[in-house]
């Protein structure tokens, strides 16, 4: 099977001289739940943001759906982003808008500018937004302001917004890092559900190894901008753990 996304020798050096990625290569098969692990500053976020061009990579190649998108510009970038939905650690909702309006923002790329600005989303789009809110179990809050919701609820709204884009892949950048352990599992369960039931490919950055074992179908580990591990989540033993997180680190179990 052809990979949905393949990254070849990707490098990113920031203007202040920090080398966030030092040549990372990996490929993602359709339907995978790939988890990227590593310490803060290992380049996980940079990797995801390079893929959908929120950050421009310095060198390397990104091939998505059989097409080289490394040097995409302007409207091409918008089309790529529409196919790669993203959710963030800080949710990045528009807090003053209602929940349903936030979900409808997932359809901006296919709505004409003037129509979207005036708030004229079609009935079909609204029904679809409502369906996705039902899927993440938050449809009863549809007309509340997004800013009023709790962290876990906000992230579920963000997931609904992402699904609204009809994406081919979902990029999740530390989706549960600012949530408490219990809520964290709720959100991860929804991601797993989306992966299993809708067959959506997911790349997810995570801290906790216990979550990785529970949800990932495959794991890669980054350390100082380089890939240091690639394989199944079960194969990460004490030795690998120390290699990825450094000696003296202890596994934190979140059950």
């Amino acid at each position, binding site marked *: 099977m052809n990979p949905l996304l393949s990254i070849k020798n990707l490098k990113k050096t920031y203007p202040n001289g920090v080398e966030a990625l030092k040549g990372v290569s990996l490929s993602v098969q359709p339907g995978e739940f790939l988890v990227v692990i590593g310490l803060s500053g290992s380049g996980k976020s940079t990797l995801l943001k390079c893929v959908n061009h929120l950050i421009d990579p310095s060198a390397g190649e990104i091939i998505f759906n059989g097409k080289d998108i490394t040097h995409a510009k302007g409207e091409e970038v918008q089309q790529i982003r529409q*196919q790669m939905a993203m959710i*963030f650690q800080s949710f990045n909702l528009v807090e003053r808008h209602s929940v349903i309006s936030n979900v409808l*923002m997932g359809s901006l790329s296919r709505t004409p500018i003037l129509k979207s600005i005036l708030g004229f989303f079609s009935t079909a789009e609204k029904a679809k937004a409502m369906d996705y809110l039902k899927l993440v179990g938050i449809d009863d809050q549809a007309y509340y302001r997004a800013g009023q919701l709790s962290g876990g609820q906000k992230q579920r709204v963000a997931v609904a917004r992402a699904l609204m*884009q009809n994406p081919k892949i979902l990029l999740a950048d530390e989706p549960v890092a600012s949530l408490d352990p219990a809520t964290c599992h709720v959100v991860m369960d929804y991601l797993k559900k989306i992966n299993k039931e809708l067959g959506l490919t997911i790349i997810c950055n995570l801290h906790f190894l216990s979550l990785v074992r529970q949800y990932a179908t495959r794991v890669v580990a980054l350390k100082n901008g380089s890939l240091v591990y690639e394989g199944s989540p079960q194969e990460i033993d004490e030795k690998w753990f120390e290699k990825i997180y450094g000696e003296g680190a202890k596994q934190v179990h979140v059950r």
Partner: protein
Amino acid sequence: MFGKNSYLYKATLFDAIVFAYLSTLLLFGIFSPSEENLLDLKTNFQIEFALLLLGLFTSLTLAKFKIKTLGIAIFEPPHKKTQGLAVPFYKTFWGVVLLTAFSVTCYVGIRVTEFSFYELTNREGFGGAVRLIKGIFSPNFKVLPRAILEIIETVYIAFVATVLAVPLAFILSFFCAKNMMSGSVGTKFVYTLLRGFFNILRSVEPIIWAIIFSVWVGIGPFAGMLALMLHTVASLAKQYSEQIECIDDGPVEGIQATGASFIQVLWFAVVPQITLPYVAFTIFRWDINVRMATIIGLVGGGGIGDMLIQYQGQAMWEEVGCIALVIVSVVWIMDTASAYIRDAIK
């Protein structure tokens, strides 16, 4: 010679200016030059230029000995500021320079303003001021009806000036915000150009604009309104754009990631974050404009200022007292109301 540490250019130049400034004052203290000497621009320019070169040299020498100068302390990038030991600023070289410059400037400032306790306590001058204040505090209410009509005109002048300025300032604010315009060289150029243009507009007081417009469209409220409007566009565009510069980037990233176009990102991620501050700034501006409109009348911009200047010119302090009372009450009401509204929409 500095490579990618381009901030060193700014720092060295700044040090040189500080050096030239301090040594100029020192030379002034030593030689106490005559007025003729002070007006000799050519010689003075040469001296300043020499001092500036000497300052550049001093700064570079200090840098060679790894002494942190004031310029470096100011211009070094944030990640360098947090490095090194935490020494109280008055124990550092740059701190001493800063303190010296500040105290010398204070001293010179007091000399320049001819600050004098003798004049302040002079009996004759003080008596005149007491007469004036007495007049103002026993207002003549015969002029009250006129004053009320005029202040109503003033409030409307301020209102129209604000309302007409808002849409212009709203659109222009996006072009004056650094984070919106850092995309390419072209947009950066527009940003710099607009910023400079507005700085000029703002640095000219509305009272000057009122004089210009009263020649252009004739004396009266229209000239005053135009003057206020121009100044308001420039001020609001600056305040608005600063608000855009400190928005939370999260929603912007979130909307960008959906594949939305630039306009959609502006509308859905930026606008919701700035609407409330914009309303608050606008109401505050209206409040300021009412105060300014009273002054603008002084040069023929219409409203209560017109009336004030007439009575003041004839030293009719009781009438001035009545007009002042009207102005104070309205300004006080506007101020309280605008503070209340700004609080309510937070």
